[in-house]
């Protein structure tokens, strides 16, 4: 490209995706895949645990997907459930093929505020995906934190993500409790909803922090269970989902009360949200 063309060519800006190549792919459940992506221009996408990208498959549209990779290094990792046109096309991408990536966007998990305290990570279903970078960061720096706990619930045993890694995290010092809503006789673990794991977990209610992601109803009941255990909503952080379409706080779709989820979230202190979540259809 000549110098004149360089001069007139607009700088891409936050609405223009960068091309990433699928370098690894693993099926997690019947409809969920984990993709590893490497940037075509070579520069690693730096992010903080809890942030998301806008991910697109050629011509099929764009969706907000939390980053699930290791903030310390390695490829960009996304765990995606095929529930619509765009997510199905993303999940169908084969190694060597390309996807579009914008971001990262959003406010991360405030891990530094939790230093010195017990940390409860509570996940429901695919809600474990946005928590994985936080778990990896907590384990990598576990000397700075108190007891690390993961409470994880899925609908059924075959709906659980990262099953091999759950054991690895446990071996590295995180107490991992898994429950499912229903299971056959081959399942020897807990059966029941996630909030019911809260009273079994040991933590110092006066200083512990909790990181939540899952269906809103699961998070509400978890917050109640945590409150009963003495952990107040100021120390509960939750990652929220709304219809993020731009990531740049310009499109309006992800409004949640006086906030924009892509800018003020997706991670919030539950105390910031409870007033708004109490209003139906807000």
């Amino acid at each position, binding site marked *: 490209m000549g110098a004149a063309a360089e001069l007139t060519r607009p700088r*891409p800006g*936050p609405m223009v995706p960068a091309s990433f190549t699928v370098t690894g792919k693993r099926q997690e459940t019947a409809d969920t895949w984990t993709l590893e992506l490497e940037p075509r221009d070579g520069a690693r996408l730096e992010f903080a645990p809890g942030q998301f990208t806008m991910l697109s498959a*050629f011509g099929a549209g764009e969706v907000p997907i939390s980053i699930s990779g290791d903030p310390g290094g390695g490829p960009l990792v996304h765990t995606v459930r095929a529930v619509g046109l765009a997510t199905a096309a993303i999940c169908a991408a084969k190694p060597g093929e390309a996807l579009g990536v914008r971001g990262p966007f959003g406010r991360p998990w405030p891990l530094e505020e939790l230093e010195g305290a017990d940390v409860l990570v509570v996940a429901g279903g695919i809600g474990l995906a946005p928590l994985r970078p936080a778990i990896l960061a907590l384990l990598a720096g576990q000397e700075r934190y108190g007891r690390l706990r993961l409470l994880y619930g899925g609908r059924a045993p075959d709906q659980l993500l990262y099953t091999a890694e759950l054991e690895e995290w446990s071996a590295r010092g995180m107490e991992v409790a898994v429950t499912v809503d229903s299971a056959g006789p081959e399942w020897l673990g807990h059966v029941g909803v996630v909030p019911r794991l809260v009273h079994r977990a040991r933590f110092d209610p006066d200083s512990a922090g909790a990181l939540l992601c899952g269906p809103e109803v699961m998070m509400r009941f978890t917050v109640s269970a945590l409150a009963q255990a003495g952990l107040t909503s100021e120390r509960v952080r939750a990652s929220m989902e709304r*219809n993020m379409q731009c990531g740049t706080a310009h499109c309006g779709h992800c409004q949640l009360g006086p906030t924009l989820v892509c800018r003020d979230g997706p991670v919030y202190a539950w105390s910031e949200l409870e007033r708004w979540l109490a209003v139906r259809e*807000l």
Partner: protein
Amino acid sequence: MSESASHTLERQDFDELFGALARRGYTVVGPTVRDQAIVYEEIASSAELPIGWTDEQEAGHYRLRRREDAALFGYNVGPHSWKRYQLPPEVRLWRARRDADGGLTELEPEPRTAPRYAFLGARSCELHAMGILDRVLLGGAHTDPADRARREDVLVIAVQCAQAGNTCFCSSMGTGPTAESGFDIALTEVLEQDRHYFVLEVGSERGGELLGELRHAPAGQHERAAASAAHDRAAAQMGRELDVTDIRDLLYRNLENPRWEEVAERCLSCGNCTMVCPTCFCTSVEDVTDLAGEHVERHQRWDSCFTVDYSHIHGGSVRASTRSRYRQWMTHKLATWIDQFGSSGCVGCGRCIAWCPVGIDITEEARAIRDSEAVGDARP
């Protein structure tokens, strides 16, 4: 701007303005009559202005009427706003070709081909609306260079309102009727028995340079008084009122007020209010491919919080009822906008009132909610 800095420009010399702007490379966008409404389009001379027309506005009502004079700017606001140029109804964000492995190659952000615009005829409420949109689009951590480019070099020639419409309430919102800043030149149109002229205030260096190219004279006491009387007339005619005292917390306290149910019985959820609003900024994107699947473009279009899809997430829409969508729109405009972007999202232009097909009036809805609290307080 001090009064002594005002100037006069006679009607017969008005077209010099178009000439001076053209010489400076500006494309003029201004008011013109189309389809029985006053809209903003590219214009080249004063003959295209809505000469001798005014607009009659009420809830659910907009009609053009003939004036008895040949005023160029003798109307209030029409269905268009400058939003069309700050955030066009549809833009292509980028286009690309598909390469062999599904990647995007030759990805080209949309080139900045927008002309250098001069906005002629912006009212005080509209200048405030432009400022509000600027804060949304350009005031955050992420800005799109294309949004920035559209605002660079825009020259604004404001027109001071000499009358207010029945649906106007800019006085309540603190956005008018008289513009004090945000323009390069502001005109006040004065029609006297035997003289038709404009009183000009200069608001920027660029405005001063432009004035230098026009046949103007210093405004005398009589002319300054005539302009001032026109401003006062507009302020006195304000058709509606919205009490903004504590409005954010008023609405936050009333998210479950039964009034939302009542307004939802009338609201068609058509989104007209969001289309005509000079600050409503919601957009969505759509990817478009050719039939062979080798070429893809992403288009950004205006969207409206009144559609069911707007709040869609996996599992359904967050706001499935009209009640919740009207509440979202009005509380955003008057309350959550303050938390999100530091000011109200309403400038009191009244467009949403006039262009609502069933005549829903935001000032009436806000009043009903305020009054319902007063009634509540009076109960023993």
